[in-house]
């Protein structure tokens, strides 16, 4: 029995992911020794901030048995409206206002998603597609599209706060890790705790596993679905404002198209698209792998025009491996 458990541990989705990550790093490192440096860690951490946060949103929704493809649009609205107000209406120089409004917007659209899915019982993919169209179409129609690139001082102050400053000995380059990196870290810990140690979290797994069973067990299915989508909306709002801070940019299209990579990160991390399975650790690894791949293809020497293809290939293979893995694990009967 014990042997069996260690064996299944060694071939679990997370471990396989880890092997792949290590192998990828080795290959890149061999081609490009500069890769093996603390700088790489910082760079990956910095580059993965948004994907990680969005992946957490998506994971919670996927676990509950839904899917959310509206977060890029919601994020764009959430980053655009506050900056629009600050730049064009009244110059409110307050980080609290910017983040507060972004989160509020995320919350509202999250509630809309929740309403469509749990009250009207529309299929999640279609419902969130609709929300996506409504959000991005609505905001551009009302407020137009501009690009805001100057931050008010309060947000600039956040941008200037770093938790790690590393100077590479050879080149003298400085690598900075912004304080906002703590957000995904804390969010991961928080979500992991929530999923494991609260009835809310277990309820999400329950409704993702079998909605009817959850209903007869006395779970409030609607409330749990509402929670999943509003949680996703809120974290999306916050992440979008982080994007504005870190990238000095707020547009109505900055995040569009991100859902593909984020869903892929979740699935590679062992979250099943059919609901009820997956956890934070796997998703973190999935995000790490995807971020690594996205940001090191030049180092690997892949020609630019082939990079889309290579990313696609790796994601497809990752999906195939994890799906096959999931099938194997649910087949062993006891």
């Amino acid at each position, binding site marked *: 029995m014990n042997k069996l458990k260690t064996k299944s541990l060694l071939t679990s989705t997370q471990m396989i992911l880890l092997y792949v990550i290590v192998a990828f790093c080795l290959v890149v490192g061999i081609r490009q020794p500069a890769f093996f440096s603390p700088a790489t860690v910082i760079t990956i951490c910095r580059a993965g901030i948004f994907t990680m946060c969005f992946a957490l949103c998506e994971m919670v929704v996927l676990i509950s048995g839904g*899917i959310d493809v509206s977060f890029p649009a919601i994020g764009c609205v959430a980053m655009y409206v506050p900056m629009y107000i600050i730049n064009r209406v009244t110059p409110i120089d307050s980080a609290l206002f910017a983040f507060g409004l972004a989160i509020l917007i995320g919350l509202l659209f999250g509630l809309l998603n929740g309403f*469509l899915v749990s009250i*009207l*019982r*529309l*299929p999640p*993919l*279609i*419902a969130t*597609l*609709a*929300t*996506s*169209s*409504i*959000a*991005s*179409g*609505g905001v*551009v*129609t009302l407020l137009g599209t501009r690009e805001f690139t100057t931050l008010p001082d309060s947000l600039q102050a956040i941008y200037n706060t770093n938790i790690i400053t590393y100077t590479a000995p050879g080149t003298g380059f400085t690598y900075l890790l912004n304080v906002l990196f703590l957000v995904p870290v804390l969010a991961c810990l928080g979500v992991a705790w929530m999923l494991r140690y609260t009835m809310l979290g277990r309820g999400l797994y329950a409704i993702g596993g*079998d909605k*009817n069973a959850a209903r*007869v067990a006395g779970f409030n299915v609607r409330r749990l679905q509402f929670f999943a989508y509003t949680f996703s909306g809120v974290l999306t709002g916050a992440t979008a404002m982080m994007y504005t801070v870190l990238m000095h940019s707020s547009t109505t299209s900055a995040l569009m198209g991100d859902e*593909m990579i984020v*869903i*892929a990160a979740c*699935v590679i991390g062992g979250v099943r*698209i*059919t609901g009820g399975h997956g956890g934070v650790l796997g998703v973190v690894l999935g995000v790490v792998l995807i971020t690594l791949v996205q940001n090191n293809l030049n180092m690997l020497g892949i*020609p630019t*025009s*082939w*990079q*889309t*293809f*290579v*990313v*696609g*290939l790796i*994601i*497809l293979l990752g*999906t*195939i491996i994890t*799906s*096959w893995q999931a*099938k194997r694990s649910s087949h062993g009967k006891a």
Partner: protein
Amino acid sequence: MKTTKTTPAVPALKKKGLKPDTHITVLLSMMAFVLLLMAVLKPGSYFTISNLRSMIFQFPEYGVLSFGMMICMIAGGIDLSLVGIMNLSGVAAALIITNMGGTNASIVLGCAVALVVGAICGALNGFIIASLSIPAMLVTLCSLQLYTGLALAITGGPAINNMPDAFKNIANGSIGPIPYVLFIFIAVALGMAFIMNCTVFGNEIYFLGSNARAARYSGINTLRVTVMTHMLSGILGGISGILITSHLNSAKSSNGSTYTLLTLLIIVLGGVHPDGGKGKVMGVTLSVLLLQLIANAFTIMRAPDTFKTFVNGCLLVAALILDVVLEKRAAKKAAKS
């Protein structure tokens, strides 16, 4: 294990076959509404031959694509890679046509290759989906990137242009006042209607989408049907690829990027059930027309394009809600009688 016995699902619509399809009625009345509205608002510019022609030039591309999405969804899946297939096959056709000097033979060969490329891409999707039983949504999400990437890699970036006139004529020419593409669209629609209603394969698609396990136990080769469904979808993607390459005189990886969303909207509006097993060619055809009517109405009303996106989103929700409401009402009526 999830038997339906504990599901207090929406009461099944009894005697469904006896009533006119509520969905088709809804679509027709929506079309009537749009036409009526435009008759009041902009009679002069909306009801013109040139507007009709301009509409006909536009919808076949994504109309054909919608049928591909439709069969995949009826079979219980989805094909998010259609636009990728469309561009990849467009690139393949363009490559052959331009390299062979644009002769008529090269055009025929190019079109054939486009269809073959579409079929191969679709078959690959189908094979991965069915043999490894991975949700179609995932597989096609990944393969979209794969096919787009391949198209990009083949062209190296820049579009392939300078198609011969004969090829450009496919999507831009007309017989008298009627564009060729209208005939192509009608042919595809009729072909699809025939396949879905009158062939074994069409019925097998419905069976697969209704209950994949039961389909297997009924002797339906689910692997073959899934592969064939996606292959057909890929072929439709190939046709679309030819149309768009001809229409735009250019083949590249990023054409028609908004079509995925549009085709999903079309088929759901057209009554294809997102869980599979239900949907009609007629509904999808009407839905294509309806959306084109609306799109042109917007342009003529000088509404910003983004407003159209907003309205499409609302329309999608409205259509689904209306569906639920109507079915409930119909069930109640059936119960009373």
